[in-house]
């Protein structure tokens, strides 16, 4: 009996610290392998804190739909349900609330379920959805510009002008996403004149589209009108970098593929990553749960956070388009969301706005996440030797990190250790670099053994020739003897 009590006491003592030490994360860290199959991975970002809309506010948040972090670190939350803008300091203390705006002629202006906000310099751009305006104002609420539906014939006049999202580039041009306008983002000059459309998706040639294309050739006009008209899927959101590169995201279209584009100022897509979001689609009751990106946020060094509203996950991509981390999820715990709508970055912290929970969740990288980010930064700069050390510690914690293998492989490749580099490139599943390393390795082998092989071959050749000649001479002598 005593023994049993002692045993159980020890058991309890052993088990208690383990329970408290285990980090409680409401989501599972995972990544995708070379066959696009999900494999476990170490969690890169952990939830820090959740701020509900009671930050010394008289009225709490009501379904806020967008937020933006200005360059000085202030958070502008667009409180859609209360038709106001709440400005928070970067430490989540209340800075100010902007409820009424003033037009330049002195009349008051109130927002009516605005959907998008953008801040640049000392100007605030708001896509005022139900007022069918885009307004530009300063932080005191003095409106300097009001955009409504352009009467330009190139702008589709059939539907109402309902702006969803807005942003402005360094030249002050204003880009807006308008509901039902699939030609791309409508671009206005800083004076408010409509210029053009910018960047549009294309229709993906799926089997259904091609079949309809075929039928349209046969049908008459009336039948054709009955068929669905395929137009590109609209962007759901976008973000702009300091170099005026626009990152746009698109929720899944009929082909079920969510997309992210990096559009340069001339309107060309330069994104290099191939498949985005969750690569394995979950099916439940005949409904596929495809990734649907609702927002993107880009860091100063081109790392891309994209927010998936279907499963509430955040995908972090490096500037080359490789997947780094996946975190977040749907649920009711700290770090999960019910209807995530906007994502922003302050320093190395990630902020996610939840429309349904009226909350802002902050994430910050774990020790492991910080290590990976640092190594990636060095790696993108081309500083392979320095990144190699960090990658090696990263691999000790997560053997499924493909970029780590490639990073070490590149460091070894540039220091001339081709054979080892081949091993790491294979582990990282990088065919192109493996082939390059192999080419160098092969030529080093040829260089090392060519003299020996060649001398053996030439000795054999000489011996063969000699043997042949001797044989011939002997034969001739024999013949001569016979003739003689």
């Amino acid at each position, binding site marked *: 009996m005593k023994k049993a009590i002692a045993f159980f006491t020890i058991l309890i003592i052993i088990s208690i610290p383990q329970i408290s030490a285990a980090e409680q994360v409401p989501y599972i860290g995972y990544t995708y392998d070379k*066959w696009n199959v999900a494999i476990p991975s170490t969690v890169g970002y952990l939830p820090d804190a959740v701020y509900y809309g009671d930050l010394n506010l008289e009225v709490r948040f009501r379904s806020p739909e967008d937020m933006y972090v200005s360059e000085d670190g202030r958070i502008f939350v667009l409180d859609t349900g209360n038709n106001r803008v709440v400005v928070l300091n970067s430490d989540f203390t209340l800075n100010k609330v902007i409820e009424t705006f003033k037009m330049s002629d002195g009349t008051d202006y109130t927002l009516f379920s605005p959907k998008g906000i953008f801040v640049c310099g000392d100007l605030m751009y708001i896509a005022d959805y139900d007022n069918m305006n885009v307004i530009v104002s300063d932080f005191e609420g003095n409106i300097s510009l009001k955009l409504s539906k352009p009467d330009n014939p190139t702008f589709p006049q059939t539907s109402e002008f309902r702006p969803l999202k807005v942003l402005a580039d360094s030249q002050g041009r204003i880009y807006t996403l308008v509901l039902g306008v699939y030609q791309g983002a409508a671009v206005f000059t800083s004076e408010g004149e409509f210029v053009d459309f910018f960047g549009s998706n294309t229709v993906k040639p799926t089997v259904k589209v091609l079949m309809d294309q075929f039928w349209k050739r046969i049908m008459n006009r009336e039948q054709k009108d009955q068929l669905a008209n395929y137009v590109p899927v609209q962007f759901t959101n976008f973000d702009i970098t300091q170099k005026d590169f626009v990152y746009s995201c698109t929720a899944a279209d009929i082909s079920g593929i969510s997309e992210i584009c990096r559009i340069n100022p001339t309107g060309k897509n330069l994104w290099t990553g191939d498949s985005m979001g969750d690569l394995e689609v979950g099916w439940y009751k005949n409904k596929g749960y495809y990734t649907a990106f609702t927002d993107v946020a880009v860091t100063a060094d081109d790392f891309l956070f994209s927010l998936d509203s279907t499963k509430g996950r955040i995908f972090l991509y490096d500037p080359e388009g490789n997947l780094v981390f996946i975190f977040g999820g749907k649920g009711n715990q700290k770090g999960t969301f019910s209807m995530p709508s906007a994502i922003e970055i302050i320093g190395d912290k990630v902020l996610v706005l939840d429309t349904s929970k009226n909350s802002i969740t902050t994430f910050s990288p774990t020790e492991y996440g910080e290590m990976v980010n640092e190594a990636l930064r060095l790696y993108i700069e081309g500083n392979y030797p320095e990144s190699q050390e960090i990658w090696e510690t990263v691999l000790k914690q997560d053997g499924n990190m493909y970029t780590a293998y490639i990073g070490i492989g590149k460091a070894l490749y540039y220091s001339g250790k081709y054979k080892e580099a081949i091993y790491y490139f*294979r582990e990282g599943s990088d*065919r*192109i670099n*493996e*082939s*390059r390393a*192999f*080419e160098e390795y*092969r030529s080093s082998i040829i260089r090392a053994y060519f003299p020996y092989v060649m001398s053996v071959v030439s000795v054999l050749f000489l011996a063969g020739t000699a043997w042949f000649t001797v044989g011939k001479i002997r034969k001739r002598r024999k013949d001569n003897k016979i003739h003689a």
Partner: protein
Amino acid sequence: MRKSDIKELGYILIHPYDGFESLSYHKTGSPILSGIIIMCFFFFTLFERHALSFRFNFYSVENTNIFLVFISTFVMVCMAVIANWALSTLWDGKANLKTIWIVFGYALAPYVAGMLAQTVLSHVLTIDEGTFISIMMTGCAIWSGFILWFGMLQVQEFSIGKNIACILGTLIGMLLILFLSFLVILLFQELFAFIKSIINELILRIFV
């Protein structure tokens, strides 16, 4: 299979027209050798998936299904042989099943050799030089096609037009066989399910 059969195969690879003429006239040719080549087709397909170098290997070894590979190689060839034989008996072809088997097997020889060479070459070539491999494989496929074409022409003694029709007909015949075998499998599944339910019912009635 005698030594002369291998010699004859070598001759046929380079002179398919003359080679198959003498083969069908003298009734030579070894069905065993042909079977070995077709089995090699299966084995090398499997081998390739494992042994191609990393740069050229796009197969997932973990997900390789040997049974599927077997069906897509060995069973496919068998189906082609049967379809061709069935068609040739309808269209007064001169060849019997054994000869058609030999023709198909011999015709595969360049392609099978190409596959082995591809596996070896993939270990010494880089991705940029991989074009050579694809050119070689295309060459081997064309070579195999030529041998099959002349073989059919010679052993069946068809005209050219009829030979084209015969090859197209063989493809359709293969599809038919595939369809019918699916049907049979499905029907048997139904049958087995029926028998199983009867047995279950009996057990429940008698013993419970």
